[in-house]
């Protein structure tokens, strides 16, 4: 299965948030596509991102690397990158790599969009 990406802007409690809905598999082949999307958003001035991973079937360390890269980019603009994920198989990867301490992980897009630091 390929990677699907779609973005939309949602008004949140702390201002507009850009929601990136990701579906399919994020691996060594598809991760560059996600990286391009995140880079493009930041270059276009979207610094508060919510990556909705509910439709993700597979995530590997390449995908984690892209998310960390995205986080670095938005932080350079004092932005934020929040994740939405309820899938245990995906959460496990964040846990074993210690990245649950790095990314705020939410249970719904609504919660992530309205979260304020």
């Amino acid at each position, binding site marked *: 299965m390929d990677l699907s990406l779609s973005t939309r802007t949602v008004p949140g409690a702390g201002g507009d948030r850009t929601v990136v809905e990701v579906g399919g*598999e994020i*691996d*060594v*082949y598809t991760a560059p596509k996600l990286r391009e999307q995140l880079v493009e958003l930041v270059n276009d001035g979207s610094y508060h991102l919510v990556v909705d991973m509910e439709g993700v079937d597979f995530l590997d*360390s*390449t995908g*984690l690397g892209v998310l960390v890269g995205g986080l670095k980019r938005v932080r350079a603009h004092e932005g934020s990158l929040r994740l939405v994920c309820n899938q245990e*198989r995906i959460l496990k990867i964040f846990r074993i*790599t210690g990245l649950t301490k790095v990314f705020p992980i939410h249970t719904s897009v609504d919660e992530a969009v309205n979260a304020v630091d």
Partner: protein
Amino acid sequence: MATVELRFSAQPEHVRTARLVAAAVARRAGVDEAVLDEVRLAVGEACSRAVGLHRGNGVVTPIRVVLTEGEKTFSIEVGDEVPGAGAEVGGGVPGARAEAPAGDPDDVDGEDEMGLAVIRGLVDDVEVTVGEDGGTIRMSWPIASVEADADILS
């Protein structure tokens, strides 16, 4: 001792194929259904790492994946052909793999190491070896033999 061997050229798009094959063979071998996700992820990590090593070092030979169904364990070996230092104790000429390019400087450093960290976190029985002819990641999982016999329908 049933064995399935897969060789693929170092293209990222083939890693998914390797994952699917590994998961299918593991399921047939009787690896617990709950562990199949781990098998899929671990073999994907090992193959992604091998693809990165081959591409980064201009190695054109294929990557080798050997899936072996033993009596009590199912094992996977992923082998690359990037020569290593050979001797971690020193004295040897450092191998190419130590100098593999880090890729996009904006990207996360040590993505390769993150892959290994994921494998070590997931798999209890894992062995990483590096020799003059390349490196091998060997992983194994127990086979739930009792369930396997009853699992004819799958």
